[in-house]
């Protein structure tokens, strides 16, 4: 039986425009605050997991700012699941018995980055030259489908229409209306303005049915968590034990072979597989959850993940949303942080930030947006390509 693992300390920086700080400043802000929250120092850390996709920094460069004790750093790259993958690496090290305490950090500076597929296709060679495994003679974006994220996830959402023809533009916009409404209670969110359905639907169209306010927001931010083994936790103070959050399930999965996924990202099968494994590992089911932070990188994604995570009856995501279940006063609040569309999505930070949100409610420390009496929650992240992490957390009973 491998060791149970707990979150001892965790922190998310405010997301948004952080012009005053560089990537390492943000990483250090999150890491030092998580250590302080845990009541420990870098001296107690035996392993680090680190993720920063676009800043070119490493765990070693962070250690030079906050403490060079010689511990290993697993510098991971896993698209939008980078932060939670870094945390997964630390959890595995502790479960394997190679460490009893470690820290995971995810950081990104993305404010004003624009479309993440690249903002220019360039002029290309003067003569057509087949390159790559498909012998492509030019960048295929816009010529053979789209590689833009808003369009990819639009197609994923529109396909839900197979199981329910009500999956349309207005429905997706109403999901974003919920996200933006929730963000008004989150002082860490990059955008904290309530938006009406009309405002959302009349915003500039990025990729139908996604308008700008239905897309995740590029911003700066970092998040970090200190993980501890249960054996070690029981030697710490009662206050540390009381505030610790149990990691009842930690799953990282890749997309398995499916026919359709050869041509088009299949974020559903990987999420289904990861969530089934997570429920089994935790010994809990969807009915036991008090809140969920899921990867709503675009409005359409949230709808399909209600189904993929088993939060509703199979094929019942629209009725589930229409029932009001996923609003903060509903049966199973989803993305009470405001989600990626309003809280923001600094890619490598997101995986740990989602876990921070759930952990903060389980500790009863979420302030005005607290989900009262929360005992268990789930954090889900997708990295396109595709990977998925699902973590199920429980309130401390120690």
């Amino acid at each position, binding site marked *: 039986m491998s060791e149970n693992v707990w979150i001892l300390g965790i922190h998310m920086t405010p997301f948004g425009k952080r012009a005053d700080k560089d990537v390492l400043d943000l990483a250090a802000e999150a890491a030092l605050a998580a250590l302080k929250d845990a009541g420990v120092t870098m001296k107690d850390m035996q392993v680090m997991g680190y993720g920063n996709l676009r800043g070119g920094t490493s765990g070693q460069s962070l250690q030079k700012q906050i403490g060079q004790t010689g511990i290993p750093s697993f510098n991971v790259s896993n698209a939008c699941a980078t932060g939670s993958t870094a945390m997964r690496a630390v959890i595995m090290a502790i479960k394997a018995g190679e460490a009893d305490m470690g820290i995971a950090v995810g950081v990104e500076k993305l404010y004003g980055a624009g479309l993440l597929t*690249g903002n220019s296709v360039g002029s290309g060679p003067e*003569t057509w030259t087949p390159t790559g495994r498909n012998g*492509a*003679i030019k960048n295929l974006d816009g010529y053979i489908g789209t590689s833009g994220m808003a369009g990819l996830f639009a*197609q994923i959402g*529109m396909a839900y229409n*197979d199981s329910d023809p009500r999956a349309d533009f207005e429905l997706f916009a109403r999901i974003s209306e919920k996200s933006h409404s929730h963000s008004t209670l989150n002082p860490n969110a990059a955008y904290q303005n309530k938006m009406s359905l009309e405002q959302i639907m009349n915003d500039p169209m990025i990729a139908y049915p996604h308008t700008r306010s239905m897309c995740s927001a590029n911003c700066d931010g970092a998040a970090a968590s200190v993980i501890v083994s249960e054996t070690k936790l029981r030697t710490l103070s009662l206050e540390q034990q009381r505030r610790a959050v149990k990691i009842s399930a930690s799953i990282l999965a890749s997309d398995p072979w499916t026919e*359709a996924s050869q041509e088009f990202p299949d974020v559903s099968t990987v999420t289904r597989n990861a969530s089934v494994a997570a429920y089994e590992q935790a010994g809990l089911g969807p009915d036991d959850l008090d809140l969920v932070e899921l990867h709503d990188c675009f409005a359409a994604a949230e709808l399909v993940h209600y189904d993929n995570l088993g939060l509703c009856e199979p094929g019942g995501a629209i009725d589930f949303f229409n029932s009001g279940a996923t609003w903060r006063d509903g049966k199973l609040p989803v993305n009470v942080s405001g989600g990626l569309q309003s809280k923001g999505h600094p890619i490598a930070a997101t995986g740990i930030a989602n876990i921070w949100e759930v952990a903060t409610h389980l500790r009863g420390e979420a302030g005005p947006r607290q989900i009262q009496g929360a005992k268990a929650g789930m954090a889900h992240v997708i990295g396109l390509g595709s990977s998925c992490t699902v973590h199920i957390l429980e309130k401390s009973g120690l």
Partner: protein
Amino acid sequence: MPIPIVNYLALEPQPHLVAQECTACKSKFFGRHNACPKCFGETFAEFDVPATGVLKTFTIVHHDAKGVPVPYCAAIIDCGGMTVSGNIIGVDPDPEIITRGMQVQLKTYSLGTDAEGVEAIGFGFEPV
């Protein structure tokens, strides 16, 4: 001789797509593979993909990387059981016109010529 936009677009005798088919498990995919992602088999045969299909899902892209002409309709087509990515062409990129379940047919078009006068050929799918 014109050059196709990708090596899995065959221009003769009629334009069509050519998939790699695993000789062991018959699963199909475009582009060179080292081994079959489904059964790990290492031998492949060419498979002519039907040039007609059904539109499964789509989006209308209004904002893209600089230099990509917008708006355009990106779509996923089911061609005889094989999932194919391609644009819907020959109609306005309008969600009032383009509908899921629509029958579509592969069509080619010129992408222009390079400095040596070689013409490149792209493809998309037109409503039947």
